[in-house]
Protein backbone atom coordinates (compact mmCIF):
# COMPACT_ATOMS: atom_id res chain seq x y z
CA UNK A 1 0.00 0.00 0.00
CA UNK A 2 1.25 3.48 -0.78
CA UNK A 3 1.91 5.91 2.07
CA UNK A 4 0.69 9.43 1.58
CA UNK A 5 2.98 12.21 2.67
CA UNK A 6 1.13 15.46 2.09
CA UNK A 7 -2.02 16.70 0.39
CA UNK A 8 -2.50 20.44 0.08
CA UNK A 9 -5.97 21.87 -0.51
CA UNK A 10 -6.64 25.39 -1.82
CA UNK A 11 -9.77 27.26 -2.84
CA UNK A 12 -9.18 30.17 -5.19
CA UNK A 13 -12.81 31.31 -5.10
CA UNK A 14 -14.14 32.71 -8.38
CA UNK A 15 -11.31 33.36 -10.83
CA UNK A 16 -10.56 33.63 -14.51
CA UNK A 17 -9.65 30.38 -16.29
CA UNK A 18 -6.05 31.33 -16.95
CA UNK A 19 -5.39 32.33 -13.36
CA UNK A 20 -6.31 28.84 -12.17
CA UNK A 21 -4.41 27.26 -15.06
CA UNK A 22 -1.22 29.09 -14.11
CA UNK A 23 -1.66 27.90 -10.53
CA UNK A 24 -1.94 24.32 -11.76
CA UNK A 25 1.28 24.64 -13.75
CA UNK A 26 3.00 26.01 -10.65
CA UNK A 27 1.77 23.03 -8.61
CA UNK A 28 2.69 20.62 -11.40
CA UNK A 29 6.33 21.54 -10.98
CA UNK A 30 6.03 21.41 -7.19
CA UNK A 31 4.70 17.83 -6.99
CA UNK A 32 6.82 16.30 -9.77
CA UNK A 33 8.91 13.46 -8.34
CA UNK A 34 7.34 13.83 -4.90
CA UNK A 35 4.68 11.95 -3.03
CA UNK A 36 2.63 15.09 -2.60
CA UNK A 37 -0.78 15.88 -4.03
CA UNK A 38 -2.68 19.11 -4.56
CA UNK A 39 -6.40 19.70 -4.77
CA UNK A 40 -7.25 23.10 -6.16
CA UNK A 41 -10.88 24.19 -5.95
CA UNK A 42 -12.32 27.18 -7.74
CA UNK A 43 -15.23 28.50 -9.76
CA UNK A 44 -14.55 30.17 -13.06
CA UNK A 45 -15.81 33.40 -14.48
CA UNK A 46 -17.95 32.44 -17.51
CA UNK A 47 -15.73 30.62 -19.98
CA UNK A 48 -16.08 28.04 -22.72
CA UNK A 49 -13.10 25.73 -23.00
CA UNK A 50 -12.29 23.18 -25.64
CA UNK A 51 -9.84 20.35 -25.16
CA UNK A 52 -7.49 18.38 -27.38
CA UNK A 53 -10.25 16.06 -28.63
CA UNK A 54 -12.49 18.91 -29.85
CA UNK A 55 -13.23 18.69 -33.60
CA UNK A 56 -16.45 20.70 -33.94
CA UNK A 57 -17.27 24.33 -34.58
CA UNK A 58 -16.93 26.85 -31.78
CA UNK A 59 -20.09 28.61 -30.56
CA UNK A 60 -20.87 31.89 -32.27
CA UNK A 61 -18.79 34.84 -31.16
CA UNK A 62 -21.74 36.70 -29.62
CA UNK A 63 -21.44 35.02 -26.26
CA UNK A 64 -22.32 38.00 -24.12
CA UNK A 65 -19.26 38.15 -21.93
CA UNK A 66 -18.23 34.51 -22.20
CA UNK A 67 -14.56 33.97 -22.83
CA UNK A 68 -13.51 31.13 -25.17
CA UNK A 69 -10.25 29.33 -24.37
CA UNK A 70 -8.37 26.47 -26.01
CA UNK A 71 -6.80 24.34 -23.33
CA UNK A 72 -4.45 21.37 -23.04
CA UNK A 73 -6.72 18.89 -21.27
CA UNK A 74 -8.28 15.93 -23.01
CA UNK A 75 -11.94 15.98 -23.92
CA UNK A 76 -14.28 18.09 -25.98
CA UNK A 77 -16.05 21.40 -25.37
CA UNK A 78 -17.55 22.49 -22.07
CA UNK A 79 -18.51 25.55 -20.06
CA UNK A 80 -17.37 26.79 -16.66
CA UNK A 81 -19.24 29.43 -14.69
CA UNK A 82 -20.05 30.58 -11.17
CA UNK A 83 -22.25 27.89 -9.63
CA UNK A 84 -20.00 25.12 -10.86
CA UNK A 85 -17.35 23.74 -8.50
CA UNK A 86 -14.14 22.88 -10.31
CA UNK A 87 -11.74 20.48 -8.62
CA UNK A 88 -8.25 20.27 -10.07
CA UNK A 89 -6.16 17.33 -8.88
CA UNK A 90 -2.40 17.52 -9.34
CA UNK A 91 -0.11 14.64 -8.45
CA UNK A 92 2.64 12.42 -9.83
CA UNK A 93 1.17 9.11 -11.03
CA UNK A 94 4.44 7.24 -10.67
CA UNK A 95 4.91 8.28 -7.06
CA UNK A 96 1.56 6.69 -6.21
CA UNK A 97 2.12 3.67 -8.48
CA UNK A 98 -0.91 4.56 -10.60
CA UNK A 99 -1.48 4.47 -14.34
CA UNK A 100 -3.38 7.01 -16.40
CA UNK A 101 -6.34 4.65 -16.80
CA UNK A 102 -6.46 4.20 -13.03
CA UNK A 103 -6.85 7.96 -12.65
CA UNK A 104 -9.51 8.23 -15.36
CA UNK A 105 -11.57 5.63 -13.52
CA UNK A 106 -10.56 7.02 -10.15
CA UNK A 107 -11.61 10.62 -10.73
CA UNK A 108 -15.05 9.47 -11.86
CA UNK A 109 -15.50 7.17 -8.86
CA UNK A 110 -14.20 9.80 -6.40
CA UNK A 111 -16.59 12.44 -7.69
CA UNK A 112 -19.59 10.15 -7.86
CA UNK A 113 -19.04 8.90 -4.31
CA UNK A 114 -18.35 12.40 -2.95
CA UNK A 115 -21.61 13.74 -4.40
CA UNK A 116 -23.49 10.82 -2.90
CA UNK A 117 -21.80 11.44 0.46
CA UNK A 118 -22.55 15.18 0.34
CA UNK A 119 -26.20 15.13 -0.71
CA UNK A 120 -27.35 11.57 -1.31
CA UNK A 121 -27.75 11.94 -5.06
CA UNK A 122 -26.55 8.95 -7.09
CA UNK A 123 -25.55 10.08 -10.57
CA UNK A 124 -25.49 7.88 -13.66
CA UNK A 125 -22.42 6.69 -15.53
CA UNK A 126 -22.37 5.74 -19.19
CA UNK A 127 -20.44 2.74 -20.52
CA UNK A 128 -18.98 4.59 -23.50
CA UNK A 129 -18.23 8.02 -22.08
CA UNK A 130 -16.69 9.76 -19.08
CA UNK A 131 -18.93 12.02 -17.07
CA UNK A 132 -21.83 11.84 -14.62
CA UNK A 133 -25.44 12.41 -15.62
CA UNK A 134 -29.02 12.37 -14.39
CA UNK A 135 -30.97 11.29 -17.43
CA UNK A 136 -29.82 13.48 -20.32
CA UNK A 137 -28.59 16.20 -17.98
CA UNK A 138 -24.84 16.28 -17.46
CA UNK A 139 -23.81 17.23 -13.94
CA UNK A 140 -20.09 16.42 -13.95
CA UNK A 141 -17.54 16.73 -16.76
CA UNK A 142 -14.01 15.39 -16.67
CA UNK A 143 -10.88 16.44 -18.52
CA UNK A 144 -7.38 15.39 -17.64
CA UNK A 145 -3.87 16.18 -18.83
CA UNK A 146 -0.66 14.39 -17.97
CA UNK A 147 2.82 15.79 -18.42
CA UNK A 148 5.91 13.82 -17.37
CA UNK A 149 3.59 11.53 -15.41
CA UNK A 150 2.06 14.39 -13.40
CA UNK A 151 -1.71 14.68 -13.88
CA UNK A 152 -3.59 17.94 -13.73
CA UNK A 153 -7.00 19.40 -14.69
CA UNK A 154 -9.92 17.46 -13.21
CA UNK A 155 -13.67 17.61 -12.63
CA UNK A 156 -16.35 20.30 -13.06
CA UNK A 157 -19.45 19.80 -10.91
CA UNK A 158 -22.49 21.97 -11.64
CA UNK A 159 -24.29 22.59 -8.37
CA UNK A 160 -26.36 25.68 -9.27
CA UNK A 161 -28.68 25.49 -12.26
CA UNK A 162 -28.26 28.17 -14.92
CA UNK A 163 -30.60 28.31 -17.89
CA UNK A 164 -28.35 30.77 -19.72
CA UNK A 165 -25.52 28.23 -19.97
CA UNK A 166 -27.68 25.76 -21.85
CA UNK A 167 -28.58 28.43 -24.39
CA UNK A 168 -24.89 28.87 -25.24
CA UNK A 169 -23.24 25.46 -25.29
CA UNK A 170 -24.10 21.77 -25.02
CA UNK A 171 -21.81 19.67 -22.84
CA UNK A 172 -19.28 17.87 -25.05
CA UNK A 173 -21.30 19.00 -28.07
CA UNK A 174 -24.13 16.56 -27.22
CA UNK A 175 -27.14 18.15 -28.91
CA UNK A 176 -29.57 16.13 -26.77
CA UNK A 177 -27.75 16.99 -23.57
CA UNK A 178 -27.78 19.94 -21.22
CA UNK A 179 -26.07 21.11 -18.03
CA UNK A 180 -28.00 19.76 -15.05
CA UNK A 181 -27.29 20.95 -11.52
CA UNK A 182 -27.28 19.35 -8.09
CA UNK A 183 -29.50 22.04 -6.53
CA UNK A 184 -32.25 21.37 -9.06
CA UNK A 185 -32.03 17.63 -8.45
CA UNK A 186 -31.97 18.17 -4.71
CA UNK A 187 -34.71 20.79 -4.56
CA UNK A 188 -32.60 23.05 -2.36
CA UNK A 189 -29.14 24.68 -2.38
CA UNK A 190 -26.16 22.38 -2.01
CA UNK A 191 -23.65 22.75 0.81
CA UNK A 192 -20.53 23.60 -1.22
CA UNK A 193 -18.15 23.14 1.71
CA UNK A 194 -19.53 19.69 2.44
CA UNK A 195 -19.00 18.71 -1.19
CA UNK A 196 -15.39 19.91 -1.04
CA UNK A 197 -14.80 17.96 2.17
CA UNK A 198 -16.10 14.72 0.68
CA UNK A 199 -14.12 15.16 -2.54
CA UNK A 200 -10.87 15.51 -0.58
CA UNK A 201 -11.80 12.62 1.67
CA UNK A 202 -12.58 10.29 -1.25
CA UNK A 203 -9.42 11.41 -3.06
CA UNK A 204 -7.29 10.58 -0.02
CA UNK A 205 -8.89 7.16 0.25
CA UNK A 206 -8.24 6.51 -3.44
CA UNK A 207 -4.60 7.57 -3.22
CA UNK A 208 -4.07 5.28 -0.28
CA UNK A 209 -5.85 2.39 -1.97
CA UNK A 210 -8.61 2.24 0.62
Amino acid at each position, binding site marked *: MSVLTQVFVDDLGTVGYNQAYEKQIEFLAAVSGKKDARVLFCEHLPVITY*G*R*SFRGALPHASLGGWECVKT*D*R*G*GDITAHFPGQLVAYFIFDLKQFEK*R*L*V*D*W*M*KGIQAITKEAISDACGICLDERPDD*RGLWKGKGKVVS*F*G*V*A*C*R*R*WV*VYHGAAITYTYREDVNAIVKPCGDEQGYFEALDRLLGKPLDREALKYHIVNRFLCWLEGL
Partner: protein
Amino acid sequence: MKVYLPNLGEDFEESEIVEWLVPEGGYVEKEGDLVEIVTDKASFILPSPVSGRLVKIYAPAGGQVAKDGLLCEIEE
Protein backbone atom coordinates in the same frame (compact mmCIF):
# COMPACT_ATOMS: atom_id res chain seq x y z
CA MET B 1 16.29 2.66 -29.26
CA LYS B 2 12.75 1.99 -30.44
CA VAL B 3 10.09 3.74 -28.35
CA TYR B 4 6.70 2.12 -27.88
CA LEU B 5 3.47 3.50 -26.42
CA PRO B 6 3.70 2.69 -22.72
CA ASN B 7 1.01 0.81 -20.89
CA LEU B 8 -1.47 3.53 -20.01
CA GLY B 9 -4.06 0.97 -18.95
CA GLU B 10 -6.06 -1.91 -20.32
CA ASP B 11 -8.96 0.33 -21.41
CA PHE B 12 -6.84 2.34 -23.81
CA GLU B 13 -6.82 0.12 -26.89
CA GLU B 14 -6.03 2.95 -29.27
CA SER B 15 -4.76 6.50 -28.85
CA GLU B 16 -4.40 9.46 -31.19
CA ILE B 17 -1.11 11.17 -31.87
CA VAL B 18 -1.78 14.90 -31.57
CA GLU B 19 1.64 16.43 -32.09
CA TRP B 20 5.29 15.49 -32.14
CA LEU B 21 7.13 17.93 -29.91
CA VAL B 22 10.49 17.00 -31.44
CA PRO B 23 10.90 16.84 -35.25
CA GLU B 24 12.64 14.01 -37.08
CA GLY B 25 16.34 14.74 -36.87
CA GLY B 26 15.87 16.80 -33.70
CA TYR B 27 17.58 16.17 -30.37
CA VAL B 28 15.66 15.32 -27.22
CA GLU B 29 16.87 15.10 -23.63
CA LYS B 30 15.95 12.19 -21.41
CA GLU B 31 12.60 13.04 -19.72
CA GLY B 32 12.06 15.87 -22.22
CA ASP B 33 8.66 16.27 -23.89
CA LEU B 34 8.53 13.92 -26.89
CA VAL B 35 4.98 13.50 -28.20
CA GLU B 36 1.44 14.47 -27.23
CA ILE B 37 -1.19 11.74 -27.29
CA VAL B 38 -4.93 11.89 -26.53
CA THR B 39 -6.91 8.97 -25.28
CA ASP B 40 -10.28 8.81 -23.59
CA LYS B 41 -10.64 12.25 -21.91
CA ALA B 42 -6.94 12.63 -21.20
CA SER B 43 -4.15 14.33 -23.06
CA PHE B 44 -0.77 12.87 -22.33
CA ILE B 45 2.73 14.15 -23.07
CA LEU B 46 5.13 11.25 -23.23
CA PRO B 47 8.62 12.02 -21.92
CA SER B 48 11.58 10.64 -23.83
CA PRO B 49 13.06 7.54 -22.17
CA VAL B 50 16.59 8.48 -23.36
CA SER B 51 18.63 11.41 -24.65
CA GLY B 52 19.40 11.33 -28.35
CA ARG B 53 18.43 12.19 -31.90
CA LEU B 54 14.94 11.29 -33.10
CA VAL B 55 15.79 9.43 -36.30
CA LYS B 56 12.37 8.09 -37.33
CA ILE B 57 8.72 8.74 -36.47
CA TYR B 58 6.56 5.65 -37.09
CA ALA B 59 3.27 7.08 -35.81
CA PRO B 60 2.59 10.44 -37.49
CA ALA B 61 0.46 13.20 -35.98
CA GLY B 62 -3.25 12.79 -36.66
CA GLY B 63 -3.04 9.01 -36.77
CA GLN B 64 -3.98 6.34 -34.28
CA VAL B 65 -1.57 4.12 -32.43
CA ALA B 66 -2.51 0.84 -30.81
CA LYS B 67 -1.60 -0.19 -27.29
CA ASP B 68 2.12 -1.09 -27.23
CA GLY B 69 2.43 0.40 -30.75
CA LEU B 70 5.76 1.61 -32.15
CA LEU B 71 6.10 5.39 -31.89
CA CYS B 72 9.61 6.32 -32.97
CA GLU B 73 13.29 5.49 -32.91
CA ILE B 74 15.88 7.50 -31.00
CA GLU B 75 19.60 7.19 -31.64
CA GLU B 76 21.38 7.54 -28.31
